[in-house]
């Protein structure tokens, strides 16, 4: 019997908006990795001394570095929103026998995020 098999295009993820969003979400990991590189360069500069730290500041202040980091920030925020949004579907948490509503799980994630961010910011700029 001859059947018709629809071909899969190389850019299949352009077919639906949800697929595009999915691919962007997955690509956020590249910017997470970029952040690790950036952080390690900062750590290296700090441990090398004040002069080296100043060089890092000058380097990270160039317009193209700021542009890269703004782009990275957008992707990281996409990661945050999608990650927290999907979290309640991967975990079924029960308190005293009843399921915790998804909204509360998401809210707890954002709360933890705010508290941690505030703590880190305080530690850095204090």
């Amino acid at each position: 019997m001859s059947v018709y098999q629809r071909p899969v295009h190389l850019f299949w993820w352009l077919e639906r908006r949800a697929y595009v969003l999915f691919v962007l979400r997955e690509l956020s990991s590249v910017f997470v990795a970029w952040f690790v590189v950036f952080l390690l360069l900062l750590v290296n500069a700090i441990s090398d001394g004040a002069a080296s730290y100043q060089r890092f500041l000058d380097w990270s202040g160039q317009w193209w570095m700021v542009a890269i980091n703004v782009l990275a920030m957008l992707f990281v925020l996409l990661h945050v929103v999608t990650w927290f949004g999907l979290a309640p579907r991967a975990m079924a948490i029960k308190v005293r026998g009843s399921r915790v509503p998804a909204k509360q799980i998401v809210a707890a994630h954002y709360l933890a995020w705010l508290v941690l961010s505030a703590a880190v910011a305080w530690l850095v700029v204090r």
Partner: protein
Amino acid sequence: MAATEITLEVARYRPGVDSEPVLQSYQVPLREHWAILDGLTYVKDHLDGTLSFRWSCRMGICGSCGMTVNGEPQLSCATFLTDYAPGPIRVEPLHNFPVVRDLVVDIDDFMTKLPKVKPWVIREVQSPIEEGEYLQTPEEMDECQQFSMCINCMLCYSACPVYSLEPDFLGPAAIALAQRYNLDSRDEGADERRDVLSSPEGIWACTFVGECSAVCPKGVDPAGAIQRYKLTAATQSIKELLMPRSLIPRSKG
């Protein structure tokens, strides 16, 4: 004056004649309570008897009339013509399945995969019939009821890019149905299902695109079921790495 007709652009594929589907247009009455399926039935009864499509219950229970409507996987019995007015409406077979003829797809792959996850209540020891049913509280039923709503319509497979790229992938509905039994308080078969579910063609191939859940007409959330099972399977594997298997208590889902 409101339009009284709407155009259906229906994908036609005649095996052995066409090399790929071609769209054919039909004018059907635009009636308020008519679903796409009613439009297709009108075509078959009045315009072109050679059109082939599957349907049975016409009320969203049997799961046979899944089609791609304007690019979206839909139950054609639950998708209304008026929602697409003024049209035209493009009706194609479900994506990701081989097309047998017109709107009819070959579902053998799903039918082979489904029994692999043993979607039935497994007991270590069957209790005698005289003892009656295995009882369950409403709270226990709540645990698995969402996943039991699946009608095997395969819209989720049609929306899943992983399934289109990797035909060996067990797929959303089969895994959700496995979870439906894993989470059932009467079931003792989670261990038997684990080899199939936790294989590379099982849960680990899923990348949580989430479209399976978005298109599910029954609110089953297969994507959620898969992620929950990933957490269960990963926790279990790591426990096994750390301590001998015999010491681990059987877990529910």
